[in-house]
Structures are given as structure tokens and as C-alpha cells.
């Protein structure tokens, strides 16, 4: 186990380097023009002045030079300065925006877990009933409907037409305290983000449960006269942790990627919206900074999942030792 962890952590820098290289290469072929983004559309800036601006910011350097300079600065702990952050250091801007995204992703994870467990387990317990059919049909519908569509629909229905929930932002702008994250504001974006993972997770929990309910030791427990509820809670439920570990391990990346859409729909000032702004302005230091942070999270999530698999599932332990 220790060996697994050290080995993975040792490769992490290499992974990050590879991610940074690919990101730099992608920005090179991106259609966006950083100077135009900097001076704004429909602004009368002459071609000479644009060239000077490009030079001052280093936009005109060849990509390998940009990359080399970036690596050199990174080695000294400097991730560069960002245009979309008004020229401020990348690291500081990411740190100040991280809490909004952590609240969103954390809340969505919790919702997926709670909702998936409850409905997946119940659907399995009441297999073949109308309830089971309803849970599954809604899951298929949810899988088929794109999250930005559901998000916009929810925004129009609950915020704009019904007025039940705030239409975007992390807190009431009128509040006297410094802007933070308000629960009322969190609900809609959190639910919509959770919905991107909810369907497969619920169905996965349901199938896992059905398999377990068919296994010998569960049948044996039933034969001993233990009640159905106790069977569910004591024997079957712990196994639903396996889909959850998979959620953390392989779908965390999707959840993080989903924040870009959700944050832009709900005007949520987190890292997803920042990533979008940075991409539109071809703000390379910021794009690379956010990509690396997301990569670290995904690698750590994977590692956590692998370690947990080994703890909870003896078969994995045997197969890898």
C-alpha cells in the first residue's frame, strides 16, 4: 500500500509536466487572440500598438520560449500573472476563487452520494415495482438531457419565473459581510451539477445491490430469518461504497469539468468560470494553472479510490499483490 502511494506520488510531477506541455500546445492552435481580448472588441487600437502590447506581455514569443519561461518561473514558485485577473498572480486568484468551487463540487458530491444511495438501494429493494420503474426512467431521462439545458431550464423556472431561488451569484450582493457562499444561492447550481453524475451512480448502486442480494451469504442471512431491512442495511449497503469510490476515482474529473458549464450558467464566480474567461482570452498562465490544479485533484482522487478498493475489496488486494 505504501509502495503504491509513493509510486503514484512520484509520478505526479511527470503527469503534471505532460499536462502542462499539452495545454501549451493546445493554446498555440487556439483561435483566440490574447491581444484582442486584452484591448476589447470594437476598440480603435492601431496595429503597431497591438504589437507593442503583445511584446510587453510576451504573447509574441514562440510557444517553446513561453513554455521554457513558464517552467523556469514555476521552479521558483511563480505560476505567472494573469490578464483576466487584472495582471495579478495566478496562484492568488485561484486561491481566492477556490472556495466557491469547492462548495459547489463538495455539495454536488454529497448530493450524488445521498440521492444515489437512497434511490439506488430502494429501487433494488423494490425491484420490478412502479417505484423502481420510475427511478430508472428518470435516470435514463437525466442521462439523455444535457446539463446546460437542465440548468437553463431550472434557472428560468425556479429563479426567473417562480422567483423561489436566487438567479446566480454566490451571495446576496446587498449583504454587508464580505461576499462568501450562501446556501440559498448554492442550491440550484449544486443540484444541477449533481444531476450530471446522479443517473449513472443511482443505476450503479441499484445493480450492485441486486447482485449482492443474490449472493449466498445474503440468502443465508435471509434463511436465518433476519428481516429484509436488516439484510439491506447490514449486508448490502456497505457494498454500495464501491460505486462511491468509483465516483471519486474516475468521475471526479467529469464533475470538475462540469463546473465550467454550471458556473457560467449561474454566474458562479469559481474556478470553472475563471477557466472559461481564461480560455476566451488565451490567458495561458491561468489556463495552465487551473488545468494543473484540476489534474492534481484527479490524480489524488484516483489514488484515494485505488487505496480504498484495496481496503474494501479483497479481490483487488489479491490481484495486485
Amino acid at each position, binding site marked *: 500500500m505504501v509502495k503504491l502511494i509513493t509510486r503514484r506520488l512520484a509520478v505526479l510531477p511527470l503527469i503534471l509536466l505532460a499536462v502542462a506541455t499539452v495545454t501549451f500546445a493546445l493554446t498555440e492552435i487556439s483561435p483566440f*487572440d490574447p491581444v*484582442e481580448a*486584452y484591448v476589447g*472588441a*470594437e*476598440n*480603435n*487600437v*492601431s*496595429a503597431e500598438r*497591438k504589437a*507593442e502590447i503583445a*511584446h*510587453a*506581455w510576451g504573447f509574441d514569443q514562440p510557444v517553446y520560449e513561453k513554455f521554457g519561461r513558464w517552467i523556469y518561473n514555476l521552479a521558483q514558485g511563480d505560476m505567472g*500573472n494573469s*490578464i*483576466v*485577473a*487584472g*495582471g*495579478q498572480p495566478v496562484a492568488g486568484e485561484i486561491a*481566492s*476563487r477556490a*472556495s466557491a468551487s469547492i*462548495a459547489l463540487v*463538495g*455539495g454536488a*458530491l*454529497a448530493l450524488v*452520494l*445521498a440521492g444515489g*444511495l437512497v434511490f439506488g438501494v430502494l429501487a433494488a429493494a423494490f425491484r420490478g415495482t412502479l417505484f423502481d420503474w420510475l427511478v430508472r426512467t428518470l435516470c435514463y431521462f437525466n442521462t439523455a438531457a444535457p446539463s446546460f439545458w437542465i440548468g437553463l431550464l431550472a434557472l428560468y423556472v425556479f429563479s*426567473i419565473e417562480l*422567483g423561489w431561488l436566487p*438567479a*446566480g*451569484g*454566490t*451571495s*446576496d*450582493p446587498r449583504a*454587508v459581510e*464580505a*461576499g*462568501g*457562499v*450562501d*446556501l*440559498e444561492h*448554492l442550491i440550484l447550481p*449544486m443540484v444541477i451539477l449533481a444531476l450530471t453524475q446522479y443517473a449513472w451512480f443511482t443505476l450503479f448502486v441499484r445493480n450492485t445491490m441486486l447482485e449482492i442480494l443474490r449472493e449466498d451469504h445474503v440468502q443465508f442471512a435471509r434463511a436465518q430469518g433476519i428481516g429484509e431491512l436488516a439484510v439491506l442495511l*447490514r449486508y448490502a*449497503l*456497505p457494498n454500495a*461504497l464501491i460505486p*462511491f469510490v468509483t465516483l471519486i476515482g474516475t468521475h471526479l474529473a467529469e464533475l470538475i469539468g462540469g463546473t465550467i458549464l454550471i458556473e457560467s450558467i449561474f*454566474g458562479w*464566480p469559481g474556478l470553472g468560470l*475563471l477557466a472559461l474567461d481564461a480560455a476566451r482570452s488565451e490567458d495561458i498562465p491561468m489556463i495552465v494553472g487551473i488545468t494543473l490544479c484540476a489534474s492534481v485533484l484527479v490524480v489524488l482522487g484516483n489514488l484515494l479510490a485505488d487505496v480504498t478498493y484495496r481496503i474494501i475489496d479483497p479481490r483487488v488486494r489479491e490481484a495486485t499483490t
Partner: protein
Amino acid sequence: MTKVHVASVGAGILALALGVSACGGSDKDASAAANGTLVIALPSQPENLNPIASENIYGGNLKFFNGLLRYAKDLTAEPDLASAMPTRSADGKTVTVKIRDDVTFHDGTPLKASDVAFTYDAILDKDSASPLATLLDTLDSAKALDGTTVQFKLNRPDPAFYDKLQVGIVPAAQLVGKDIKAAPFNRKPIGTGPYVLEEFQPGGRIVMEANPRYFRGPPKIKRIVLTAVEDENARVALLEKGTIDGAGIVPKLASRVRRNGNYNVHEVRTADARVVALPNRDPVLRDPAVRRALFLAVDREKIVRGALAGAGEPAYGPIMKGHWAYSPVAEKPYDPDEAGRQLDAAGWRREGDGIRAKGAKKLSFTLVYPSADSVRKDIALAFASDMKKIGVEVKLEGLSWDVIEKRQDSGAVEFGYGTPYDPDIELYTLFHSKFATGDDDFFTNFPKTRNAAIDATLDSERSTLDRNERKRDFVKLQEELANDASWLWLVRLRHIAAISKRVKGVDPQVEPHAHGFSRGMTWNLENWTLDPKS
């Protein structure tokens, strides 16, 4: 593994989510303060609050700064930090400004002439990467002669220079020797203006507090919050809920806000025109006869009634009606029959499908508009339908600017331009052939017009300080532009803003296309008052 573990993992994540979300409780004091707060929604948050790094001279000034001059309600320049109007030397190449001696920055340090010189020199410094450098191309240097006198040296007499003396002045001590494009000052601005920055939440809100030592007396509204709401429908929903007190709205939604009853809906006259630029290298649009015919076939009144829901006026040229340099020379009535006759004469005849053609060439072109702008889309649709009536096919495409920029030589683009200030500021870069050279001139001379007569009037109007002579040049320019017809003006918008009826003192100024908080609707924000909530 037991269920206890499952539950604790879930609880941990929930705690993580709720831990961050646990704030927002309010007590009596807080609600009293919130009552004296004015919340205004902008479509997006400004990234940079430093006037030197701002996109245009009007945009970057969020009431944290003052310029040497400012525009009065009627757009005449008047002293702001200056103690009197500037003086020009006989050759027009030296401009001297005396500044007030009773002004302090937000940090308490007094304003000096050296701060003014520093601000202008910093814009000229290539390392600052200032987008304002093009605007100040006529400036060679700025020098403090003593504590309250600044001298500007120009490389030619510049009749529009007073319009350029409105850059927000920054304290030199905060920025001297620093890399301005990356300075912390860009998000912690310190100026002389009526409001002081209290909070900058990246991507979220900006909170401004009244400056108690503002040299014209502290503003009446003590706290102003600017929040970013991109979606035009969401802005209206927030107005209806009372979450915000003011916002810019699109014409279509104005009646909905009027019905609400809590808002005054202000329609501000602007110079902001929507104009279709017809590239001179397009295989169909290269013929000026075709372009002139299209000009006659636009039903501008109908676009105003339809796409603008009445909030606008027809536009025929680059200078707005009522401006000192305006000429009605291009004002021609809607005449699709005459347009058809002119196209017939130019050899474009209607074919079986109703579209005109000349030989194998069809009279057809693409019109691209920025897709994020619903008003521009509606205008483009109306334009295409007018063109269809005279047998011209216009294919519409809504794209983002980054993609539109790659298509300079084929197809038309719907732009938004217009300034109510000195026309030279904008028109020279839009029409002079100097700006039709490379590939980097998309937002300057987009059609790549190379017209000697246009160049001559532009060079002549900026060679003199005499307004009557300049007016003659601008009249000639408007004539030549109508003749060349590379730019097909459609309408000028009225900008619409809804502001709570609790607010008194709103007295809008005519606006340019791109404007910030120191212009237009909010130019006199520091004089507004706010009635308590009933």
C-alpha cells in the same frame, strides 16, 4: 466496511460544503446598512480597475478616479482636477494645465502635478501595455513644471486633445518603478474620486464606499455595490425580486420592467450606431454601385420600431444628429424601388429564384454578427429581410468575435460604433487607409477602404484647431462616405436602464458606444440620493 464509514464520508463532504456556505446571517445594523446601499448589475465585472490598463478612456473609471477635465451634462469639457481650462501655445503643440491644490488621494496623500505627468507617461511607456496608447499617439511627453502645473508636448496640434485629458489620474507613489500591467494596484485602486474601493470579490461583486474627503463633498449614497449578471433576462428577474436596484436592460424587456412599478426606466440617447461594414474585397460588395443601392433599401424606421422596440433612431452616417459636425447629406428616404433600379442599371438582374445575378455571380453575401448580442441579431434579421425584398440574398451567421475576426475579406459584419465627443477620436482609425494595411486592423478599418478623398478630409480636419474649418471637413467626409458606401449605417440605439424609484437625481448624459461608470447614465452618480425603503 460498515455503514458507519459510509455515513461519515458523506457527512464529511456535506460538512465541507456547508462549512463554506455558513455565512449570510444579518442583524439589525446590517439591514440598516443594506438599506442605504445601492446595488447595480453590470453585464460583466471589469478585470482591471487601473485607468492606465483600461480598455478605453471612458470604461475604466469606476468613480475611483478623476481626470483633469470631465464632460458637463451637455458634453462640453469642463475642469475636473484642473483648476481652469487648459491653455494651448500658438503652434498648438504645447498644452498647459493648472491643477487644483485642495485634492487628496484616498490614502490621504495630496495630488500633485507629478502624479498627472506620471499617469500620462505610464500610458506612453510600452512596458505598461496600455490600450490607451493609440488614443494618445499625439502626445510626446508630459512634464510637471511645478506642484500644480503640467505641460503636455504634442507632436502635432491635436484638436481632440481636450477629450484625451480625461484619463483617471493615479498616485505616482503607488506605481513608480513597478510593472504596471501586473501591479496589485490594478485591483486595489487608489484615486481622488467620489468613491473608495471597499471590496473586490473576483468574478463576484465590487463594493464602493463614499469618499469622506472627496474635494466636491462626500457623495450622498454611502455604499454602492456592482454585481456582474451576464444574462439579460436574469437582470430583469433580479430587478423584479428587488435583489438589485438598477441595471441596463434590452429594449424588448423594458415594458416588463415598467409594469413592475418600482423602477424608472430611463432611455438615454446615444451615439451608439449599428452599422453593417461591407468589405471592399468581397467579390460582390466591391462594386460601390451595389453598396449605394443597398443603402437605400434599408427600412430604418421599421428596425427602430421592431428590433429596438422604439428605443432608437435611424442612422445614416458616423456622426449623430445634433452633433456640431453633423451633416444631413446622407439622409436618404427608404426607397426599395430606386435601389432595384440602381441594381438593374449596374447589371444585377432578378433570376427565377428572385435573387439577382450578374452572369454566374449571385448577389448574395454573408452578414456576421456577435452571437451573444440579441439586439444585434434582431437588427441583422430585419436587415436581411429588407435585402430580400430587392433580390439580394443575405446569409446570417452569429459567431463569437474571435471567429469573426478571421474573416475580414469576405462577407459583411455588423459592428457597433459611435462617439458623441470629438469625431476625430474614432473616425480617423475607422476610415483612413493607414488602418487598412495589415491583418491586425479588424476593428479599425474593417472594409479596408482606400479612398483618397476620405483620407484627405480626415487629414485636413485634424490639421487645424478651428472648429468651423473642421466642420466643413466633416461635412465633406460625410458626403464622401455616403458616396463610398463601405459602411451602411442602420440605427442609433437608446441605452435603456432601469433604476429604482428610490433613487433621485438621475440625469443621463448622451452616451458613446463603449462607456463606463464615469459616463452616460451614471456620470453624476455622486450627486444621486437614495430614499429609505418604505
